[in-house]
């Protein structure tokens, strides 16, 4: 590179410039000013979405803790109707899903869409209005659920007045996102844009369908209602949260490390296979239910086909980061995002397997399913959103994060918390599942018995067959239901402990966000670029 003296304010450059250098400098200046314009246009709406998301995250965590404690100490906070489990637990789910996860996702989506389309956000005031309306929707919906006005259908408990507000607010954001896509600079549509485009386009469609069929005179009841309910329940994750999370991963990992995705071909294949197969997966929640068997089988096939996008995505994430894991020591964004990407792989593999009847029958209606759901929405999605916010916010506020120590506290408390929660609830759920099916025999016992009589290979196969398929036949003696419930209590205590750990992490994060919004961090002169000259950081990139 030629040594150029560039003054970004006055545009003065070195006195001996060849035309190529001059063109490059002008191009750089144009890109810098364009980036600054984009960030300025997004600043208020994205920060409003982020700030609201963190507020709802804290509320959702408190509701989660209350629900969790009630599971092992049922006399806790029972003096008021609105504090009973049947109201607090759905309020927790809705606040986390529509307050935290949606608002963090929408903020990230808007910023990413503008960045990738290379155009500023037009009329950001309308998006601010949408964010306000969304907050009113979440507030009134949660108040409605706590007041006993829940629809009783999981994921769509909010009363109609609240869902209507959420729909209008989301439609506004989606229209703005799609308008931005329409005004994009000519060039390639990056894979993250496809994912964002998908979530903005499909979610309103899915949401209005389930509302029409559960909350209006067109309401269906009985078995069809459950089919529609789980079609929506799974698609909230599949065509809304997952695409937003993957869009952020596909942008942030290459961007933070400074190298392109390992295989762009695989990333495109991953998107289109997700678009084609995820929508089919919802009915696997109805295994064993009074629905046509073909419906569940088709759903199981769709779920197994999801191995294609999951494997392609997992390969891409891992291979892009491969030999650059050292960057994790220096980048808060990458820590959270890589954790989320790894959780995505695990939870997706687990989810596909859980669609099979052989796995679903013993574990459905147990804490094992709760472990799976938390790994998906928290271990994957929430961790990615934390990472995205660590990346985006300083670029919008122009201030660095105020404390590296608090970021580390945040990371380790939530990472250990969710990992421990997943493991303990999975084990507790498995025990619960087998006990509910009245089988006292564990896999170890079965292995020992069968291998002694049938030999190693056929004995192992027979033991596995008994373990997963024949557990109903092993009813040596019935286990009373209350005994099954009691056996889950130690696992539920650990769950509450992990919840407290996560809450501490959230408090640290909330403080960091507040300090950043108040301009407590170091002021950055380059509003959009955070190059570092740390030697170790450079070396880790050169590996």
């Amino acid at each position, binding site marked *: 590179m030629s040594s150029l003296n560039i003054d970004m304010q006055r545009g003065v450059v070195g006195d001996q410039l060849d035309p190529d250098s001059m063109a490059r400098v002008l191009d750089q200046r144009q890109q810098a000013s364009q980036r600054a314009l984009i960030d300025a246009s997004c600043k208020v709406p994205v920060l409003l979405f982020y700030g609201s998301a963190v507020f709802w995250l804290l509320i959702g965590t408190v509701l989660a803790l209350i629900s969790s404690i009630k599971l092992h100490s049922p006399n806790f906070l029972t003096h008021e109707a609105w504090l009973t489990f049947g109201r607090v637990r759905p309020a927790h789910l809705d606040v986390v899903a529509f307050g935290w996860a949606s608002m963090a996702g929408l903020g990230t989506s808007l910023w990413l869409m503008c960045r990738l389309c290379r155009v500023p956000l037009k009329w950001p005031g309308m998006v601010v209005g949408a964010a306000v309306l969304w907050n009113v929707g979440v507030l009134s919906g949660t108040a409605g659920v706590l007041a006993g006005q829940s629809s009783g259908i999981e994921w769509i408990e909010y009363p109609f007045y609240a869902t209507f507000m959420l729909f209008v607010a989301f439609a506004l954001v989606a229209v703005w996102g799609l308008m931005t896509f329409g005004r994009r600079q000519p060039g390639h549509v990056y894979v993250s844009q496809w994912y964002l485009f998908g979530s903005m386009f499909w979610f309103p469609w899915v949401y209005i369908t389930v509302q029409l069929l559960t909350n209006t005179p067109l309401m269906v009841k009985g078995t069809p209602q459950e089919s529609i309910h789980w079609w929506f329940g799974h698609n909230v994750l599949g065509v809304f949260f997952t695409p937003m999370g993957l869009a952020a991963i596909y942008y942030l990992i290459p*961007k933070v490390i400074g190298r392109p995705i390992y295989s762009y071909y695989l990333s495109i294949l991953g998107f289109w296979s997700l678009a084609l197969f995820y929508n089919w997966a919802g009915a696997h929640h109805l295994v064993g239910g009074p629905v046509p068997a073909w419906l569940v089988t088709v759903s199981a096939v769709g779920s197994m086909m999801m191995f294609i996008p999951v494997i392609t995505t997992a390969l891409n994430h891992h291979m892009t980061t491969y030999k650059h894991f050292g960057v994790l020591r220096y980048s808060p964004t990458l820590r959270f995002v890589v954790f989320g990407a790894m959780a995505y792989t695990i939870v997706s593999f687990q989810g596909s397997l859980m669609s099979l009847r052989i796995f679903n029958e013993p574990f459905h209606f147990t804490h094992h399913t709760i472990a799976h759901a938390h790994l998906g929405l928290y271990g994957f999605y929430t961790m990615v959103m934390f990472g995205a916010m660590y*990346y985006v916010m300083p670029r919008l506020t122009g201030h660095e994060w105020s404390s590296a120590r608090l970021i580390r506290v945040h990371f380790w408390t939530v990472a250990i918390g969710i990992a421990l929660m997943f493991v303990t609830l999975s084990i507790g759920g498995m025990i619960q599942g087998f006990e509910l099916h009245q089988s006292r025999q564990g896999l170890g016992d079965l292995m020992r018995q069968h291998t002694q009589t049938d030999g190693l290979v056929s004995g192992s196969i027979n033991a596995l067959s008994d373990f997963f398929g024949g557990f109903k036949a092993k009813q040596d003696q019935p286990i009373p239901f209350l005994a099954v419930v009691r056996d889950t209590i130690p696992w539920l205590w650990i769950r509450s402990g992990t919840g407290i750990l996560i809450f501490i992490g959230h408090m640290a994060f909330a403080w960091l966000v507040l300090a950043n919004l108040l301009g407590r961090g170091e002021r950055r002169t380059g509003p959009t670029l955070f*190059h570092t000259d740390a030697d170790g950081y450079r070396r880790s990139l050169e590996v």
Partner: protein
Amino acid sequence: MSMLGYILVFFILAGLSGSVIWGLWWALRGGQFSNFAAGATSIFDDEEPQGYATDAFPPAKDENKSEEMK
């Protein structure tokens, strides 16, 4: 479910599935699948080029002070 409900569900699902196929056709026609190498590097530019990391922990407060002293 009423007939109107069935018709509604049919059109919604047809539209949802159709949008995916239309999107795939649009991408194929627009040449989005023709140059993957360029696509992968499209997020980098002169200001945020390949080979440069763009995120780091904030420096420790002691480091800030020492830099200010300099």
